Every structure is written in structure tokens, then in C-alpha cells.
């Protein structure tokens, strides 16, 4: 049952071959059995899940069911869930119970989806290995000595191990696509503004976007259809119609051109990953796509530009955590003035990586450095974005690696932030430019999954998902399950 896709489970539920309650119990049992090792959940909402499943079964019985009615899924613990602990994997929010639902939580709940729980992540989504979590690292289901990637590492591990059929995530610099690639699943980051950010705890507001981690592109289409769309509570929400993604993925293949930046295949990419990616691109050619070499002149500057822009926005966003209205408060000490009180609440409530980002952001925004760092990074961001716009005059997608290599070892990169940051070298460009992008399982290297990334023009999610669906009908990389979890 657990190896079935969301689309298959949805069909099973509506044909009454299985009940939502049976399905929910099955996944709760799998979480209980496997998550002590994986550590992919921070909170399991078993009681609420069973109540929601019972309600879904009534809807199914009365013939009033939507496609997601009774389908279990998990939310990254960055989304506010009313009455349920919402931590962002930080000591700062260890005691925070969200007073309201995020828009996507509300929309998926209204569609009848059953929430299994909240998944582990890097603290405040700052990390590429899930090792900065206050609740401990998540393990990669393909090899427990390896990281699952991050920051949506819990969502990725849970879906890869099939202890949840699908999960939500957020992507500021690659946080959906990179863990999806390292765990062998499908990850979609939509266009900036496509999915509401209301109730999603902010990291870098001009880059953050919510998306999904699923077994297949078809499943991603089913979820995006419910999650996407205008929300007046998010000032950056796009007021654009939501296409019927789950229907569109099944439309016949059109002639498409895929741009391949040759610089993506230089010495920075693991040679075996490169072979797997070349083979996947050949598969696209067999499906009728034309490959075209392209150049992106400024893409190599996306990591430095990002590590100015994202920390600057983070330092501003995270200033709300002061220990007064919510969040961690340090015990009072004699002689405290108000500043000492704030500084200790924040100093003790945030972990080392979050502190580094806040301090970096404070540095690049401080008097005398603003123009040289922050303004210059925004100009380079424009150059990176223009590169993509130019490329999309000739091609439908830009294809390349999602990550430089397969999953790395726990603890292997924690001592050197730059080595960790370089993991997102291929994914950050899409965030800077606000473009939709998807990682698809495309092969194995040393028994570990490899991801292919496709980037598309703004609001071309339907085309991306369709390309992914057609690729997945011709290949079976996405259907491989780690032996221990099969």
C-alpha cells in the first residue's frame, strides 16, 4: 500500500478499495516502526489524523470527495498548523503552538487531505543537510550514515522511505530540490508568488516559495493544483489563474527544446553524476526533445549573490524573535537591561548556523557596507535573472544537475560553511530569478540516487510537470524504494 503513488491512492479511495482510516493507520504504523532511526518527523499528529480520516471516509461514502480526500500527507514544520506545535526546528520555537493555519495547510485540509505530522528540517530552513535542526539530524533512507539533504530533509526522507505518500516543503535556495535529488524523489519549487507564503515562517522573503516533495510529477501536479492560487493575505501572491495541472500532465508531448549549460558539466560535477545526467538527457531526446547547448554567463555568481541577499533578509525577518510575544525566553538575571534580555533570548534560542546568517546579514546591511555588498548583490541578481530570460527566448527548459554529487556523510561538511553552501550551486539561480524548477530522479551512482533539474519560465509549472510525467512514464528511477523500506 505504501509504495502506491498519491494518484493511485486517490483512485483506490474513491473506488472504495481502501478506506482513509485504513490508509492512515498504515502510515502511522510505518512512522512508528521506522522513524526512530530516520528522525524525519518532529511531531506526529496521530489523533487528529485519525479524526480527519474518519471525516474523509464520510465524505467518500456520501460521494462528496475531492481528489485529495482521505490522502495522508506531511507538512514541513515551517508551516503554521493551528493548535499544533510549529517549531521551524528551532529551540526558539520549541514551545510555539501556531494560533492559525497557513494558507496551504487550510487549502489541503479543505480538500480532505489527512495530516500525519510535521517534518524535521534545518533550523529556520538554513542548511543543506538537515544537520542544523534542534531536534537532531535526519538520516537518508538509502544509507543511514548519509544526510538526506536540506532544508526539507524530513519531508524528503519520509517520502523516500514511503512512511508518508507526499509532503510539503519550502525552497529558498534549493531546499526542496536538493533533498529530493539526494533521496531519489520528485521535488517541485513553483514560480515565486505562485503558492501563498501566508503562515509559512519567513527566512528570505524575496526568495522563499512553498512546494512539494512527491514520488512522481503527477502527484506534484495533484497537490499544486490545490495549493496554488491567489491569496490576499500574502502581498506577493500572484493573481493568476491556476491551470488544471493534473489533467495537463497527461496531454500529448509537444516538441520541446531543452537548453543545457555546458558550464554545469565542468570539474565541479561528480563524473558519475555527469554520466547519469547525460543518459537522462538522451532519454528526453528519445521522447522527442531537442537539446541545445546554451551559456549562462553569470550563474557562477549565484552562490555569492545569494549569501548576501538571503542573510540580509533573514537578519530582518528573524528580528521578530525577541522572547516577548512568543518564543524562547532565557531566565532573568540580576542587572539585566532590556538589550541584555533580548541578546540572551536570541543568543540561547538560535543555533550556530542561524546566528551566522543573522550576523552575516547584519554585516552586509551595516553602514559603509550596504552599497558594496547588498546593493551589488542585487545587481548581480539582476544579471543572473537576465541570463535565464535570454535563454528562454530559444529554449523551453534549462536542464542540468540538481546537486554536484550524491548524498554526503553525516558530519562531513558541518565544519566548513562554504563547502555546505556550494551544495546549492545549481539550484540557487532559480530562486534568484523566481523561476519554477523541478528535480527528477534520473539514475543511480554508487547505489545512491541522482537528480536532474529542469528550470522553466515564470508560471510554466504545467509544462514542467508534463515533461516530468512523460519522463517518468519512460523510466522507473522514481519508483525505486530503498531496500529496507520496500
Amino acid at each position, binding site marked *: 500500500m505504501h509504495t502506491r503513488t498519491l494518484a493511485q491512492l486517490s483512485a483506490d479511495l474513491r473506488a472504495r478499495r481502501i478506506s482513509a482510516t485504513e490508509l492512515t493507520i498504515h502510515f502511522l504504523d510505518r512512522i512508528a516502526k521506522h522513524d526512530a532511526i530516520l528522525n524525519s518527523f518532529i511531531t506526529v499528529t496521530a489523533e487528529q489524523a485519525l479524526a480527519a480520516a474518519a471525516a474523509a471516509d464520510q465524505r467518500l461514502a456520501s460521494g462528496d470527495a475531492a481528489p485529495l480526500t482521505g490522502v495522508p500527507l506531511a507538512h514541513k514544520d515551517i508551516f503554521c498548523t493551528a493548535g499544533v506545535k510549529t517549531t521551524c526546528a528551532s529551540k526558539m520555537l520549541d514551545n510555539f503552538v501556531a494560533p492559525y493555519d497557513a494558507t496551504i495547510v487550510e487549502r489541503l485540509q479543505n480538500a480532505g487531505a489527512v495530516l500525519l505530522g510535521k517534518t524535521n528540517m534545518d533550523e529556520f530552513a538554513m542548511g543543506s543537510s538537515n544537520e542544523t535542526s534542534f531536534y537532531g539530524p535526519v538520516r537518508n533512507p538509502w544509507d543511514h550514515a548519509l544526510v538526506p539533504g536540506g532544508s526539507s530533509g524530513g519531508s524528503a526522507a519520509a517520502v523516500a522511505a514511503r512512511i508518508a505518500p507526499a509532503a510539503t516543503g519550502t525552497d529558498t535556495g534549493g531546499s526542496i530540490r536538493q533533498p529530493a535529488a539526494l533521496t531519489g524523489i520528485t521535488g517541485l519549487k513553483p514560480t515565486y508568488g505562485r503558492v501563498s507564503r501566508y503562515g509559512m515562517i519567513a527566512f528570505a522573503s524575496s526568495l522563499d516559495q512553498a512546494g512539494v516533495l512527491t514520488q512522481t510529477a503527477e502527484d506534484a501536479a495533484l497537490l499544486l493544483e490545490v495549493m496554488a492560487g491567489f491569496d490576499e493575505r500574502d502581498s506577493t501572491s500572484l493573481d493568476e489563474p491556476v491551470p488544471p495541472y493534473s489533467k495537463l500532465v497527461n496531454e500529448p508531448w509537444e516538441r520541446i527544446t531543452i537548453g543545457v549549460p555546458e558550464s554545469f558539466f565542468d570539474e565541479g560535477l561528480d563524473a558519475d553524476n555527469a554520466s547519469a545526467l547525460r543518459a537522462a538527457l538522451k532519454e528526453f531526446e528519445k521522447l522527442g526533445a531537442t537539446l541545445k547547448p546554451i551559456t549562462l554567463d553569470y550563474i557562477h555568481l549565484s552562490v555569492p549573490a545569494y549569501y548576501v541577499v538571503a542573510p540580509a533578509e533573514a537578519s530582518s525577518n528573524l528580528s521578530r524573535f525577541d522572547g516577548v510575544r512568543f518564543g524562547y525566553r532565557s531566565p532573568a538575571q540580576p542587572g539585566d537591561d532590556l538589550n541584555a*534580555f533580548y541578546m540572551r533570548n536570541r543568543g540561547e534560542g538560535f543555533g550556530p548556523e542561524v546566528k551566522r546568517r543573522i550576523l552575516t546579514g547584519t554585516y552586509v546591511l551595516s553602514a559603509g557596507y550596504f552599497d558594496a555588498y547588498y546593493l551589488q548583490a*542585487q545587481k548581480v541578481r539582476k544579471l543572473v535573472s537576465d541570463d535565464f530570460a535570454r535563454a528562454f527566448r530559444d529554449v523551453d527548459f534549462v536542464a542540468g544537475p540538481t546537486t554536484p554529487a550524491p548524498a554526503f556523510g553525516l558530519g562531513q561538511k558541518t565544519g566548513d560553511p562554504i563547502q555546505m553552501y556550494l551544495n546549492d550551486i545549481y539550484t540557487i539561480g532559480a530562486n534568484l530569478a523566481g523561476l519554477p524548477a523541478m528535480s527528477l530522479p534520473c539514475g543511480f551512482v554508487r547505489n545512491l540516487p541522482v537528480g536532474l533539474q529542469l528550470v522553466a519560465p515564470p508560471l510554466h509549472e504545467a509544462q514542467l510537470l508534463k515533461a516530468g510525467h512523460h519522463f517518468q512514464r519512460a523510466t522507473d528511477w522514481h519508483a525505486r524504494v530503498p531496500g529496507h523500506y520496500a
Partner: protein
Amino acid sequence: MLRPDDIRRLSRLARLEVTDAEIADVSTKLSSIVAMVDQLQAVDTAGVPPMAHPLDRPQRLRADVVTDVDRHEIYQRNAAEVERGLYLVPKVIE
């Protein structure tokens, strides 16, 4: 290269305590981050407009009417200390 004194200044600006035990590690790692982003200085960006966000459209405004309802009791459940609807902080004399 960021020295411990630079880190102390940033720590005060950010209202974020960095303990003496942390300071050496923070200076080393922040220095390596700043060295990495210094690559940006070599780029010729003359005439390039800064890009603050990806939306190529004006910010939307809503009607200036009250839409929120009073939910302070629910919101204040997450506060460390509350009295008569007010947030409390330790007594400070400045």
C-alpha cells in the same frame, strides 16, 4: 578578515549574544563567508538596476478597512509572561 571586536559590534547591532566561547569560531567562519561573497566586487555592474524581488509588477494595495478581529487571547498564549492583555518583560531601569 573579521576580528573578535567586529563580531562584538555585529552582535550588539543584531541584539544577538555571541559568548566568549563562541567568538573565535564565529570570526573564522564569518570571515570565510565574507571572503566568498567578495567575489561580487569584481563584477562590472555599471548601469545594472538592482533587483529586490522577482515580481515584475507593482505591489498590490488593499482597501484601507479593518478586517482583523480581536484574537489577542489566542496570540498571547505563546507569550512567556502576560498580564491583563499586556506582554511583560523583566523590570529594567535605564
